[in-house]
């Protein structure tokens, strides 16, 4: 794929384009080589592995997702199927049937739908014991609070998935558009979808990837 992506840019473009290209290549190298020794990869479901920098979910980091609960469920499905426990904080609308259809084991998931203003301590408490924690913060946390939680995540080897903004996230996945198949005007029903997701790794520009769920 990298070769195909590169060939889209003809060599010998303007200087600015070339600088961009070098930056992008550097970002890709950074994303491929792990900067910390203690990051460990989690089982990742193949549908979303292509979206993530490094091709898998890492422990001790946070991922932010904008515009899709299904994408978050797909991220949780891999670790859940591998036998890990998942937690969901502050998402009262979490669809259990969709979670099961995406591959999450409902036997190993705990929900705290209404944590109120205690959402941060609750997230921290769950991150202590569960492998993946999905949280929808009512408002973005301050850098200091977030970095305290990140230190805890690194220590415990768990992963945070945030529906919303989070300072210093490993990758930001934003749904640009969704194309549905199976639905006509007045007939058919929703069958499958193809999402275009803008993936921005921690360092580096954002790239569009396609994923079908």
């Amino acid at each position: 794929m990298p070769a195909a992506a590169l060939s889209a840019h003809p060599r010998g473009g303007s200087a600015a384009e070339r600088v961009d290209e070098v930056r992008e290549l550097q970002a890709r190298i950074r994303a491929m080589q792990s900067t910390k020794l203690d990051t460990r990869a989690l089982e990742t479901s193949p549908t979303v592995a292509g979206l993530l920098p490094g091709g898998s979910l890492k422990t001790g980091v946070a991922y932010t997702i904008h515009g899709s609960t299904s994408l978050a469920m797909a991220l949780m499905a891999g670790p859940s199927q591998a036998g890990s426990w998942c937690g969901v904080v502050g998402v009262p609308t979490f669809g259990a049937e969709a979670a099961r259809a995406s591959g999450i084991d409902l036997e190993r998931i705990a929900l705290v739908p209404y944590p109120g203003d205690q959402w941060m301590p609750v997230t921290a408490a769950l991150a202590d014991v569960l492998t993946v924690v999905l949280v929808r913060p009512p408002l973005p946390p301050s850098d200091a609070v977030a970095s305290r939680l990140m230190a805890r995540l690194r220590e415990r080897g768990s992963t945070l998935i945030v529906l919303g903004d989070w300072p210093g996230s490993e990758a930001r996945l934003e749904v640009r558009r969704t194309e549905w198949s199976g639905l006509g005007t007045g007939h058919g029903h929703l069958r499958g979808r193809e999402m275009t997701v803008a993936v921005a790794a921690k360092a580096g520009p954002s790239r569009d990837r396609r994923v079908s769920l």
Partner: protein
Amino acid sequence: MNGVRTMLAWCPDWPVLAACREHDMDPEVAVAVVDKQRVTACSPLARVEGVRRGMRVREAQARCTGLVVLPYEPSVDSRLFEPVVAGVEASMAGVQPVRPGVLAMRARGPARYYGGELAAARLLVGRLAELGVDGARVGIADGPFAAEQAARRAEPVLIVPEGGSARFLAPLPVEALGDGDLAALLRKLGVTDLAGFASLSPDAVRDRFGAAGAMAHVLAAGADPRGVAARTPPREVVAQVDFEPALDRVDQVAFGIRAAADALVDELFEHHLACTELRVIAHSADETVERTWLHPRWFSGADMVDRVRWQLQGDSTGSGLKSGVTRIRLEPEVVDAIGHHEAGLWGNGPDEGVHHGLSRVQGMLGHEAVVTPVLGGGRRLAERQVFVPWGDRASTELSDRHARPWPGSLPEPPPATVFPEPRAVVVVAEDGTVVTIDERGTLSAPPAAFSITGRRQDARRVTGWAGPWPAAERWWDAAAARLAYRFQLVDASGDAWLLVLADGAWVAEARYD
């Protein structure tokens, strides 16, 4: 060989009495207790009207139009019999509860103490009447079988003289053995009474009817080999703390109960027991609140204190107290051998850690704040997922309901966002009028735009839609019936929604995001 001299008390229609007490009813009316659509027991008045045991409920109701039908609950039967047994134990030792409604004891002790078998039997009838069991019958004979037959024919006391059991049993019909199949077979063979059955050769009976038949044969001959196995009265292990003056702050109560809860757990430990189900009873000046709590593992002292706190704080079921607490009582409902709950040498793996973490969150937010999703049944999406508090047991009914077919349920894929409460939305046609539907399920116009906030300026163009899919719920019940039409709508940006049109109003049920 004569059986051991036995005194047996029989409480007629015990299931009726127990069910009436449980439902706070008067047993003097016509009542029938039914199990699997058949009458298990009925009150005397119902019997006068022609209701019989084993009759179909419909037939019983036809014979006695005012019949009150109560469900048969074996647990209620045994639970309410327990105080009766304990009450009899207070005046006569060595009681064996045979089954709910029947208790037996060796006759020799009470007969000697109260001056004769007749006096002891009369005293037992009186004692049972004091305990609220009117019309109890007592029989004394050699062996529990003969004693029970005597009790069933007693008015209210019948004493079969020592060594006379075989003669007493001889004229009884073979149905008295309590085995319907055996009795029917014996009647076909021309054997109608116990004397006839007893006169058959033991070897022939064993060959033809097997071990159960051989046992019945021994009973019919009046030689009951069974003894009376007196129960050991159970030790009561509970913790109770009285507060004087009454406490109105939850943390004070929690502090006050802490030592008692720890002592209760220690006492259970001494008996090698662990409590897995706990009943917390909180008394205040003018009300009593009780609730049973489950524990995924077993209760420690701190866990018990947590349960007391949650119960007093109240939750969505509204079990909080309104006035000061005067007394807290902790009763272990279910105990288990501690050996089944011993932690392994290296702990019980990661799940123990998970449990501690989730319990900590419950300690912060309350019992019902941490839930696990269980799929249930229903047509509406919010009905299909049930959130069970961590530590509680999901009812098996839920999975049964989930497995049933639900005509009109949604096609795959399921939506990832399900609104617990539907949100009001507006769906308009090309000309700006709100889309409606007539009784025949025909739309006034195809939906052209919809607004999730309900305001027209937030309207989005519809690029694809499907529906209406009717879902008729409980159409057989006019009060609860609901006819709803579902639609899937996709807007230009690819947002997909599940909308519902019911009673002329549009709501959003879920979102495919």
